[in-house]
């Protein structure tokens, strides 16, 4: 058999992943389309609710084509979606695309701030713990992070609100301050939400990096570096950290994807109008087309983020693409 070149392997890997990606996105679109048919009774009645006028009903029929066979309805809907027309709320008259455009930056800010916090805590902690495994400091950090895995984000959010907003008044208890009103008020308004989201990441990142570091430190090249008389600090930072950070990177990629969709509770509790918040508000007001459109966009974004994370890992670590 012919030896394949490294580039060939990478291309084959890319092609395989791209086919998977297309299949999944296609499936997501079908499921998002079928959601409306889960509604009890005539979907147009449920969608319109109190706005059930003849002209509004004609609009729903046009958007969804509810009187035609299902595959035709899907194609009409898909055609609209591909032209960027995700439908329009009958409640606020705003298009789904506009709402997403306003909400998405808030999700992005929450994810970025929480991940910066998580890395800033987890990486130094793992380096210190892995330096002397099973000693007091390592045991304390390992036990604490194990406990943190049992604290759901919503419980942590409630505790943070109780201590930092209700008792100390250090941060606003809820609401979002736009960046145009100053950087500090803006960061303060997302602080509690970001901390609540960061805690879970800290536990996962610390545990991963610690165990990877400990196994890397057993390798021959570390012994070699020690024999050369390099300081432990230098070895940890310059020799051990990089080869130990692949699984950290992989889990961060998956984590960022799920944070984008999983920030629902934190956004809802702290009244931060990101996409999670908007979806819940739309569910509360039975604004079904809004929910459908946002769910479609968020699900596709989640799949794309995971795809990008996978790809990055495949490029960085040759073992992944060789399967």
């Amino acid at each position, binding site marked *: 058999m012919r030896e394949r070149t490294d580039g060939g392997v990478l291309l084959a890997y890319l092609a395989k992943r791209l086919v998977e990606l297309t299949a999944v996105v296609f499936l997501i679109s079908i499921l998002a389309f079928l*959601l*409306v048919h889960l509604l009890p009774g005539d979907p147009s009645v449920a969608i319109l609710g109190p706005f059930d006028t003849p002209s509004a009903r004609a609009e729903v029929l046009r958007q969804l084509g509810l009187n035609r066979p299902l595959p035709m309805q899907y194609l009409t809907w898909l055609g609209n979606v591909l032209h960027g027309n995700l439908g329009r709320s009958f409640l606020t008259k705003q298009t789904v695309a506009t709402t997403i455009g306003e909400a998405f930056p808030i999700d992005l800010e929450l994810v970025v701030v929480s991940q910066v916090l998580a890395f800033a805590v987890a990486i130094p902690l793992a380096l210190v713990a892995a330096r002397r495994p099973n000693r007091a400091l390592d045991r304390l950090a390992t036990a604490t992070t194990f406990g943190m895995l049992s*604290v759901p984000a919503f419980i942590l959010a409630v505790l943070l609100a109780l201590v930092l907003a209700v008792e100390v008044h250090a941060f606003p208890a809820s609401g979002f301050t736009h960046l145009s009103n100053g950087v500090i008020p803006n960061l303060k308004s997302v602080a509690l939400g970001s901390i609540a989201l960061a805690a879970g990441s800290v536990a996962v990142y610390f545990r991963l990096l610690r165990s990877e570091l400990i196994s890397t430190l057993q390798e021959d090249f570390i012994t070699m570096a020690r024999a050369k008389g390099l300081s432990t600090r230098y070895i940890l930072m310059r020799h051990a950290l990089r080869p130990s950070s692949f699984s950290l990177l992989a889990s961060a990629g998956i984590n960022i*994807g799920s944070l984008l*969709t999983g920030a629902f*509770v934190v956004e809802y509790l702290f009244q931060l109008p990101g996409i999670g918040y908007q979806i819940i508000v739309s*569910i509360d007001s039975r604004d079904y087309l809004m929910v459908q459109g946002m*769910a479609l966009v968020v699900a596709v974004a989640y799949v794309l983020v995971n795809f990008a994370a996978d790809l990055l890992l495949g490029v960085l670590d040759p073992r992944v693409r060789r399967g």
Partner: protein
Amino acid sequence: MGESRRPLGALFWVCLAFIVLVILAAALANFLPIPSPTAQDYAAINTGPSLHHLLGTDDLGRDLLSRIIFGARVSLVIGFGSIAIGLLIGGTLGLLAGFRGGATDAVINAGSFVILAFPPLLAIVVIVAFWGRSLWKLTLIIGIAAIPQLFRVIRASTMSYANRDFITAARAMGASTRRIIVRELLPNVAPSAISFALVGVAVVIVLEGSLAFLGLSVSLPTPSWGNIIFEGASNNNLQLNPFIALWPALAMFLLLTSLNIVGDRLREHFDVREGGL
């Protein structure tokens, strides 16, 4: 030579006892000497712990201990029920795919990858919103979401046994596929499946709590741990009486820690390392 399995330790038994205690309390809640979880005692609103109300009352004068015990029912039914559905379907498929291999394995495995590509919380939130949120619907939706995860674990574990000598021997003796799976593979795969399932129960209990916070779990006034904590965090209750949120949060933390520790210790205990053989 004796078995060199890692001992379970005292903490394991303490945690297991706590899980059993919570299950018993929830199952026997109707027979316990506690007030109804929805009965309002107007003489005792937002009180602290007392003889009448061991954990105090909430802003409507309802007994917090009673609400926590009855609320455990929802968390436990959804937690254990959905994982049971996932184990039954995902486990069966995992055993079959792991043992058969070939086309069966390829098809089921590809299907599991497609489902795993979806963002789980979003899918559950949206389906609950469109379809409804009774206890059995929630259990079913989360159960279906759990199938691919449990399938993958059990498939991997089955594959590690499928080519061992004792399976070849059973095959040589003419045992049917069904017999090999039930009598030879299942007993070996079960321990790791159970430890993974317990951690899964903890994940689902958190999920129910998240849904309750979004107003998408069982309807009020039926208590669940999630919606008691949510009530305790809304309407200025955090300022007036933080214990409404803190007691159920503590109960949930203890149950989750117990499930995680029991699952973790079981996994270590049954982890057969090649070096130990």
